[in-house]
């Protein structure tokens, strides 16, 4: 039976992959062709979705973008034998966009059946866990520390240090919490992993549990990701059935249980302490730190809170060793970062690369420039709390420290491209407005500062006491940066000030770019 792959990834579905799969099934049946349709993750090249891949004698052959109406002609042209057709793409892995990536965390995404445990194991899955089960706890943590892995959620805190703190905090109960509240605009790598290879996250969390002695894990998933919810639950069930979750993991006598909990549309719950409050069933108000969640976390117990990509990078580290992972990257940014090209960009998608390539390479060599064909004017990296960059800054290497040096953040690796029709005063106002909408309200600089920020920007744009109000806006941003409890209020000034500094003409100010 010929295996045919059509993605179940949300973005592929948003372009019609569901109907493509359905049509393929009915058309094949009508033509007496026996096929096995696998609903895989996405390869991450979304301009080619819905993508159809066929397993043929000469390897996997791709066609795309395919619409349901194309299916009869494709079948007639001999798609199941990998024959030519205008939508023929050949071996997708030979396209430069795919070939030039370093797919470590995303090794299986788009290739395997996401919810098949057998498929996962056949593609090098659960090798990290096998190694971890033979190790001392300190040894597991050492591999993670040696890998140089830093929190991929955006804060880039060394993962090994966090794990070590939890390991050394004695308690009768500890927790592993996965932060899957991927709320930043322009980011979708967490979603792609959860939809395309949920076992890698489950394996990473299980290893984390073994490393620090935690027997219960929670994935705090945003409610906007129903397809990820479904895939995770299917995979968790399969892992329980296969003895990879439960009271006795693979006969080791060690226990790890895992459950998905849904958020409810609050951006702030991506902040780790707010997330913990929400998991406890409360309003997602940010907690004071210290104490750190690693010491007093969920239900007051020592807790690892890690992002999806951080945890999903652990299996390969335990499989191939911390050194293997550390050999990718530059400076203090080790390993790879799954970058997400979004917004006004021709070749939008996921690009996992070792740290160090420049933003310009990514935007033009792979991204192909703007989708509209107009010049790229501003690029926001790192989500709604990240700075807007302008052309002169595009040669900055994608590296945590290099971005910090230009008052920007790499964050979760989300890149939103705007062409020259963008009004940066509007984007600055939106950043403040978003903070009004999403502030948890606990601290004054964030709660009130954001509202005052919208008003001050409105006055600047309306040309009321311009010089005075620009000074006031800068002063307000300073208060928010220094006085906010968490990154919500503390970083909202990044997009605001970068817009003001790099695009003053949009605020009706003299262009005085430093």
């Amino acid at each position, binding site marked *: 039976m010929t295996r045919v792959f059509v993605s179940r990834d949300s*973005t592929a579905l*948003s372009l019609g992959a569901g109907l493509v799969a359905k049509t393929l099934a009915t058309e094949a049946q009508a033509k007496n062709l026996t096929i096995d349709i696998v609903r895989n993750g996405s390869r991450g090249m979304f301009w080619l979705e819905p993508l159809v891949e066929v397993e043929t004698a000469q390897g996997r052959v791709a066609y795309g973008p395919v619409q349901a109406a194309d299916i009869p002609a494709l079948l007639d042209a001999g798609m199941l034998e990998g024959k030519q057709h205008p939508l023929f793409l050949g071996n997708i892995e030979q396209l430069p966009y795919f070939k030039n990536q370093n797919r470590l965390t995303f090794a299986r995404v788009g290739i395997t059946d996401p919810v098949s445990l057998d498929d996962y194991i056949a593609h090098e899955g659960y090798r990290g866990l096998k190694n971890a089960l033979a190790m001392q706890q300190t040894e597991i943590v050492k591999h993670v520390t040696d890998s140089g892995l830093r929190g991929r959620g955006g804060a880039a805190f060394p993962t090994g240090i966090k794990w070590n703190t939890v390991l050394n905090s004695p308690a009768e109960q500890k927790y592993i919490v996965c932060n899957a509240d991927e709320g930043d605009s322009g980011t979708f790598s967490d979603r792609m992993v959860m939809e395309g290879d949920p076992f890698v996250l489950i394996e990473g969390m299980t290893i984390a549990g073994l490393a620090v002695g935690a027997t219960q894990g929670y994935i705090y998933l945003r409610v906007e990701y*129903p397809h990820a919810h479904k895939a995770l639950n299917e995979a968790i069930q399969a892992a329980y059935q296969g003895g990879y979750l439960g009271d006795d993991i693979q006969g080791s006598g060690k226990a790890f249980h895992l459950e998905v909990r849904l958020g*409810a549309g609050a951006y702030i719950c991506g902040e780790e302490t707010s997330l913990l409050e929400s998991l406890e069933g409360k309003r997602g108000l940010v907690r004071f730190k210290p104490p750190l969640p690693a010491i007093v976390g969920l239900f007051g117990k020592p807790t690892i809170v890690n992002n999806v990509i951080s945890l999903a990078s652990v299996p390969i580290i335990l499989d191939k060793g911390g050194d293997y992972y550390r050999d990718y990257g530059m400076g203090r940014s080790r390993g790879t970062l799954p970058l997400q090209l979004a917004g006004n960009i021709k070749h*939008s998608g996921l690009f996992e690369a070792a740290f160090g390539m420049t933003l310009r390479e990514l935007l033009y060599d792979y991204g192909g420039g703007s989708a509209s064909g107009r010049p790229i004017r501003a690029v926001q990296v790192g989500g709604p709390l990240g700075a807007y960059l302008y052309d002169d800054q595009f040669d900055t290497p994608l590296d945590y420290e290099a971005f910090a040096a230009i008052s920007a953040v790499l964050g979760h690796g989300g890149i939103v491209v705007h062409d020259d029709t963008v009004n940066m005063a509007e984007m600055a106002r939106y950043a403040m407005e978003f903070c009004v909408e999403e502030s948890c309200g606990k601290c004054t600089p964030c709660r009130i500062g954001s509202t005052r920020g919208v008003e001050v920007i409105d006055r600047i744009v309306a040309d009321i006491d311009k010089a005075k109000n620009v000074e006031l806006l800068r002063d307000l941003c300073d208060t928010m940066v220094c006085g906010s409890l968490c990154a919500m209020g503390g970083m909202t000034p990044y997009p605001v000030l970068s817009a003001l500094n790099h695009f003053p003409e949009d605020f009706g100010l003299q262009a005085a770019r430093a």
Partner: protein
Amino acid sequence: MTQDYQNQKPVVLDVLAAHQAMPGNLLPILHGIQDNLGYIPADAVADIAAALNLSRAEVHGVISFYHYFRTTPPGKHVVRICRAESCQAMNGRTLEKHATQMLGIDFHETTADERFSLEAVYCLGNCACSPAITIDGDIYGRVTPEKFDQLIAACKGAQ
């Protein structure tokens, strides 16, 4: 207690019973109620509070904190439009304006005929194909005003 709630109460009590032993169960309970009833009726607050040994103010506080939870019945179809940066970069603001005019309602409102509710959402994770919307949970990418009209017409046709 309203007439409606007399019919809804057994559902609420079932959801409460199903989550009794779960640690941190308030959000799963609220999801359970909204999944079943479409919203969280005001009268349910007292029952939830009693079952969880919380004050009604605490329960109300949680419901009102989260954008996703609603306290009024939704229209037959719920349309969510992403308003975040990536969608704005692909003419999302034009789509927002078009949608509100075409449906004749603003965000967080329901049409008088109770057919459509319009909600704002900040990112659907579909940023590679902006602008994005969902209708009754189905996701659509690269939505132009014309495509929006087709999708709405399809909803109307299906009724």
